[in-house]
């Protein structure tokens, strides 16, 4: 792997690692492990932990994928490995 595509791959791994940490936090941590603690906080009539488990995590997943797509497209251009 040439120098610049090695850098590209590292930047990719860094991005994915950050996004997957968030993925883990909103679902496993907020939705399951810390659910009772977070349920102390109520948004409207829903405990925060319960909300993350049934809705918040799904909304976050959505944002994560679109952020990933956008950042990766930018990385592709930066390292000149984009299509066309």
């Amino acid at each position, binding site marked *: *792997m040439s120098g610049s*595509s090695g850098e*590209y*791959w590292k930047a*990719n791994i860094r991005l*994915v690692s950050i*996004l*997957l940490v968030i*993925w883990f936090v909103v*679902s*496993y941590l907020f*939705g*399951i*492990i810390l*659910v*009772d603690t977070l*349920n102390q906080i109520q*948004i*409207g*009539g*829903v*405990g925060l932990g*319960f*909300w993350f*488990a*049934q*809705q918040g*995590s*799904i*909304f976050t*997943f*959505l944002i*994560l*994928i*679109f952020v*990933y*797509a956008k950042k*990766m*497209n930018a990385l*592709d251009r930066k390292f*000149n*490995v*984009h*299509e*066309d």
Partner: protein
Amino acid sequence: MELQTWIYIFVGGTFMLYIGIAVWARASTTSEFYVAGKGIHPVANGMATAADWMSAASFISMAGLIAFKGYDASVYLMGWTGGYVLLAMLLAPYLRKFGKFTVPEFIGERYYSQTARVVAVICLIVASITYVIGQMKGVGVAFGRFLEVDFEVGVLVGMSIVFVYAVLGGMKGITYTQIAQYCVLIFAYTIPAIFISLTLTGNPVPQLGLGSELADGSGYMLAKLDTVMMDLGFKAYTVQKGTSLNMVLLTLSLMIGTAGLPHVIIRFFTVPKVRDARASAGWALVFIAILYTTAPAVGSMARLNMINTVNGVDSQGTAYTALPSWFKRWENTGLLAWYDHNGDGKVQHAAGKAFGGKGKPSFVANDDGSAKRGGYGERVVSNPSDGGRATGAPFANEIYVDRDIMVLANPEIADLPFWVIALVAAGGLAAALSTAAGLLLAISSAISHDLLKGIFRPDISEKQELMAGRIAMAGAIIVAGYLGMNPPGFAAQVVALAFGLAASSIFPALMMGIFYKKMNNTGAVAGMLSGLGSTLVYIFVYKGWLFIPGTNNLANTADNWIMGIQPESFGAVGALINFVVAIIVSRVTAAPPEHIQHLVEDIRVPKGAGAATGH
């Protein structure tokens, strides 16, 4: 107009649409047949993926699962959506860059091994066949419940429709019908949900209705549901019942399994570019999330509605003869049953089992085969429980409620017009057919492309392969239909098996193929077999070998599970075993050849993907 007429119009109309699409979108090359010519717009593919993914179970059963399990059902909501994050970031763009037709093809080429390819084909076929049986059953059930035709006739009609568009159009026909099916199913799902949310909370957005106050001024909807359920001896709706470890592992197994299911992965082969594959996963999740974030509202509101309707304003039960007509209608289908334990003529619902054995009712029939009726006109049941009160319950539970009713009867419970009920019928069928078609394509392409063209007869022409693909598709439809009509005993265990297999064998092999350049053929095959083997053994020990009843070594109860891990949750552990074994074995065996390492470097960058085709 009568309800039946409406249903015939909606179901007939959607079926005509699917056939029309089939005629318009015929496949004339193998590329069109396997991957729709790689010309699908990412948003369109997202919609098709959503329909491909959301099965009869998502549409009909999930809200009911949530209604009865409450908070604990969050594992399905997170598990069946979070997998798309893994798919988008770890698999889809790279497999699209690889640019071939099937998942086993990637595994075979990346691990330069026909053995690896065959192992992948076997995992794919077992996972997909078990999954498709459920869809065929779903078609038969939907027909039976809404149109009162025989189960077998329903399956046959469903098979014929899929036959027309899948055999003619392959992936191309399937893609465009899935888009149409998504539109049908999402309207069918959200319209009743909006009405129910509006009636109950005054908020037309079900996602917000979940956290809103009730329109009758009795406080927040979920708080009210918690109170009502605890008064009846149930655990509170929003409180956790299972262990956190099990919930974490089950969620993880479902996520990894989702990302590893071949019929989902191949949808990302149909978009023109690598960056389309990334965006398309996001769009798929948008379309899935519309249903998945509506489901918690439907589940909780339907539960509250049902309890209120059955137990009445004074919470002491409602006279059977005074119940709304939907109760009797669904009693006729066997999804509801009543036994008057305290002999007061009123129907009461509380914690505990109303019926003996597994809690399901056995209905008594007259000599002429018609349902035997009791004094109030209710169906007579032969297996009432002892009628004892559950701890904390004010009275004995007198009804059996199948969880599917939460979606199927929803429009009637909310008193919506007939056309909404007809739309739900068409939506249930769309959900089942779209998933069935995607699975059938994964199966037939594994047979015609991986086994026939890849291994047994590499010299066949494209025309011959296309014909073989169509024949494999026809064969797969017939097998799936047969199994749908005569479901083997294990059909109910499908979820554990299909997700367990995908999670423990396919996902790790794909991920290491992309992210671990030094992974070699011996490591990958050893990893797949040990992940697969350990998962199968764990499932079989508790559920019976090959699911044959009575052959399980240990009773399937929490006390017997290792560290309290239920068999359904083991896929994540199997995946871990796969990773560990594969890495250790690859360290002590020869590194993959130079050209394979170059192949990995090549799929890691998007550049040069546009022109790639099958051969």
